[in-house]
């Protein structure tokens, strides 16, 4: 994983640094100011030097000038466009809290709810309950989250006035866990949860339906197990093998925000930061945020692989096993 990360990072670094630099040319469009800014950004040096400086700054964030004076510098560069002079790592993590809270609660709701609905649909397969829920699930999967966001905001916030329109600013000692802030999180949580709930329902229904028709299920029932026991002990466990990595994927997605949902409900999360860094050519931010999510993605992939073994002990990763 580490090697993969270094390779991806290196490719991203060089590609980003090959892109044109968007520097305000300063007073009077003075070309020397432009050149000085290029130097300050470190863009005047050969690419390999820029790369080495970047790596060095990560581990040794100090710079010694021509007079031998040492200055501390940012490990990951600075934001020039989105948040002037801010360090990209601090920028990202300072916005992480509302995103993680909303996504976290969404996951806590959507995964169990989705699985429960899926189980119910599988158990009621080809009955009217299944048909109704299947249609509903397809509709909910097909409609994008921002549509829910607008409908929820218009209905529950504006027309019924049950919830705030947007998340309130943190003033006078308020925190992300203040009741008024949490109340404001209800609608974005629901908007985020609807799609995931539908997806989990659909997958759970499909997997469990297939499992329930397996021979071992008939065997379990013939051994005298009740239907509940057979479903829980044998059916569910086998059905969870492909679902488990999905859950992990969602859990990892806790760190990435939804641009539209965050915009509609005024959540100051990380949703826009990646897009803004690209649109505004804020390359240090782009590089850091990109690398952060790549790292998370790689870790997620690794965990997903391992999780197969947890869901089904017959699956092993690596090792010198032979076919028995």
């Amino acid at each position, binding site marked *: 994983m580490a090697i993969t990360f270094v390779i991806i990072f290196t490719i991203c670094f060089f590609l980003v640094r090959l892109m044109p630099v968007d520097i*305000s*040319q*300063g*007073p*009077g*469009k*003075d*070309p*020397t*100011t432009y050149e*000085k*800014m290029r*130097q*300050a*950004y*470190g863009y*005047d040096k*050969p*690419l*390999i030097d820029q790369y080495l*400086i970047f790596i060095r700054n990560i581990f040794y964030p100090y*710079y010694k*000038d021509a007079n031998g004076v040492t*200055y501390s*510098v940012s490990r990951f*560069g*600075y*934001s020039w466009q*989105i*948040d*002037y*002079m*801010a360090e990209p790592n601090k920028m990202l993590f300072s916005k992480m809290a509302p995103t993680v*809270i909303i996504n976290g*609660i969404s996951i*806590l709701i959507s995964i*169990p709810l989705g699985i429960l609905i899926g189980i119910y649909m599988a158990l009621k397969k080809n009955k009217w309950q299944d048909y109704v829920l299947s249609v509903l699930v397809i509709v909910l999967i097909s409609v994008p989250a921002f549509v829910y966001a607008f409908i929820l905001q*218009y209905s529950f*916030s*504006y027309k019924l*006035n049950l919830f705030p*329109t*947007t*998340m*309130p*600013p*943190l*003033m*006078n*000692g*308020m*925190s992300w*866990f203040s*009741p008024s802030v*949490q109340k404001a999180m209800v609608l974005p949580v629901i908007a985020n949860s609807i799609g995931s709930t539908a997806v989990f329902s659909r997958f759970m229904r499909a997997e469990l339906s297939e499992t329930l028709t397996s021979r071992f299920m008939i065997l379990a029932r013939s051994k005298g197990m009740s239907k509940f026991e057979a479903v829980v002990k044998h059916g569910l466990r086998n059905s969870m093998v492909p679902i488990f990595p999905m859950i992990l994927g969602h859990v990892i997605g806790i760190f990435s925000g939804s641009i539209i949902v965050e*915009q*509609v409900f*005024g959540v*100051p999360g990380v949703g*826009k930061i990646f897009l803004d860094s690209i649109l505004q050519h804020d390359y240090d931010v782009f590089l850091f945020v990109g690398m952060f999510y790549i790292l998370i993605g790689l870790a997620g992939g690794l965990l997903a692989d391992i999780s197969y073994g947890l869901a089904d002990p017959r699956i092993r990763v690596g090792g010198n096993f032979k076919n028995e």
Partner: protein
Amino acid sequence: MKLKTLQILLLIGLLLVGCKSEEDSGSEYNYTLNVALTNSPKAWNPHTWETSDENYIPSYTTMGLYQTGLSDDRKSFKILNEMALSTPVDAGKKVSTAEKQKYGYTGQLNDAGLVYDVELNPAAKWEDGTPIKAKDYVESLKRLLSPNMSNFRADTFWASNFVVANAEAYYKQGRITSEELYKYIVNTNDGVPTTRDILFDNTYILNLGLFSSYFANIFPNQKQGSLFNVLASRPRAAKPEVEFAAKRILDAVQYYIFNYVELSNNSKYSDVKVMTDLNEESLLNVDIDIYSFDVNKVLVRTNADIAIDLNDSSTYEEYSTNALKEDLTTFVSNMTAGVAFQSSWCWKLPLFAHMQNNNTVDFDEVGLKAVDDYALRFFLKQKMTVEDLQFSLTSNWLVRTDLYDKLTKRFSSGELSATAYATDNANNYMSYGPYKLESFQKDKAFVIVKNPNWYGYHDGKHVNQYQCDRVITQIVANHETEKIMFMKGELDTLSLNKSDTKDYGRSSRIKYVPEPYTQKISFNSDRETLRRRQEQTSDNDNKTILNNLNFRKALSLAIDRREFANNATAGSQPFTGLLNNQYMINAKNGETYRSTAQGKSVYKKVYGQLGGDNGGTLLNPDETGDNHSGYNKNLAIKLVKQAIEEEKLLEDGYRDGQTVTIQFLTSQSKEESETVRDGINYLESAFNAVTEPNGMHVSIINKKDGDYYNTANRGAYDMIYSIWGGATNNPYGLMQVYIDANFAKNCEYGFKGHQGEINLEIEFSDGSKTTKTYYAWFDDIVKNLIEPSLSANPAQSQLDEYNRVHNKRLDVLAGVEAGVLSRFEAIPLVARSEASLNSYKVEDGTQNFVTFVGYGGIRETKFNFTDAEWDEFLSHHNYDLAEEYKK
């Protein structure tokens, strides 16, 4: 089951933790203004701000030495003393001999408008109560101009009419700068440059990669504006000699770099083994002294189509400085652009000169001094009137220097530093205006509250002002969300878009904020370009008719601007001129250009009197229109007929049955933007209403182009929206965008670049007439016809002279405005204004929009409700005021 239990416990835990936190009571505030911004400012440092968002917080938390405010009649503005105690006083007579020498003054300075004393308000304090003294202004300026900071706003002190002595030199000190040579050529006869500093090494520099505003202005088809871009993007149909010259210049640079530049030290050249390895990128940003071509052997091609082959001596010849000059002359003079392109010295235009900026400039030499604790003295390089100086000092450069320095960081490479002052959070900033920044939550909200240490709350001069005691500004990126918040009473202003105006256009709470911009359609009128574009379409399409003046005039007369404004804008007003009602010719009394006899005369010069104008002999009396808004359908139909007849006589002209296809470039497509779609629909229908009676169909084909101004600058368009506006106290300056041949963004292709060749006759108020080129007229209104300064009690002769020059200048302004409009390449549609709703909670200070003050701003905002009363009002209306705002 265990997992499920854990999840429930976690959720409960989160909620319980939340219940412990405090909540916002807000009870200490009575009058809260709730506002939304689309974007969060990245910084609000007065030394670096670039966008209006970045100046938003300072508009509450700072105060200028002078400020514009509503006059007593609430219909005009006046200049107020704020951080200054009194108006500036000419201090020319107090200047010592040493100071004269230091600031380069000669002659009599008394009342010369070069040195001013400004007495400071001793009651002014920072938000922490520390008094603000003269040295704070001086020290703040030192940081603003610091050569190591590269602050974006440094040029405030030299790039306008407010030129503080030695400010630019201090900022640029110690650097060898490559300056654009053409800027220092003041004698256009011999092209000899004069400089304010010495030419460092008396050389002229050829640099293919360096940005030059000359390239950007004259050859704006590349944003980079370097000679390389210009050479590389020469027109395909360039004359053979231009092709040859361009290739020889590139050859010479390539040969020189390969043979005389130390390549091994630079990784950029690490792969260069033979000369042809020098690619485009590696030819850039190398300074070459043009005289080195006489000293060093440099080879260039002898045939435009055959590259140098060192084995074949017939393919190359030795280059020289004179040969370079000839090639540059060939290239520049054939670009047919710019004022001096045909001069004998035009080869200097793309070159640079090394300037050694005096590296001993001390800040003590910069023309701002603290006379005592509460008095500043400005030493100016350029004369200013008291009023102009006051206007310049309405924005303030003051920063809290100890905090500024503490937050200054060194970059990881190079010698530059930057400060995090006024970024990220309220602790990184110090206010000194009527309000202070209480909290700043990036991308969410910031809260501004009354600053109890502001002098204005105690000096008796601001009674009944600044009633608002808290401003909560939220970042709301989504317009629909903003609208819901407004209708629920959570916001006090709402900008309306076009669809909103359908519902709220008649609201009693609507207000229009006029902008200095005129929205026009601009046509490509260059026949050659149109013909080439036409050749790329089907035989049934015609574009060359856009070159026909009668046709363009007909299209203009076909537009009912009131209909256009209603159909395709959110509150803009129909308009037929280039300079709308916002432009003033006398800042003292607020007289607008459009209210003058000259301003009023333009319409008649361009459109005649449409109410009774028969277009010469084209219309019968009963066919004339009856309005004065540039709309006359009957006359337009006749003009189309006339244009068709004229075009049929031309080889590449319009033929019966052809469709006139107008490619209309817009930044958003009509699928993306309702405004674009409605505008296109209206224009297409209006055009066809006057062409179809003549058997001609016009089709407007929309093409999205995010960079359409630059595309238009290359002539690769048929029609665009062009929207220009400028400083409202300088209507003369705005004419640059139309009649300055050097102006990069001029987009009336066909007229663009020819302003120095096309003549215009202007009739003056006294009946005399003069003919000059458009560009020469521009020179007159910005340089030659400048009204003399008036003393406090001017003599009659002084006044007479002032009025003579002033009227003549206005005559020329009106003449060139009418001249540009009569070409019908730029056809005005509307004067832009923005429509917004005020909540029932707040009232503006005036019902009349006043230039420089708007509707009075936060200073004059009054509240109809306290916060508690407003909550009650909202509750009574069930938190939904949508229907109320329609009334």
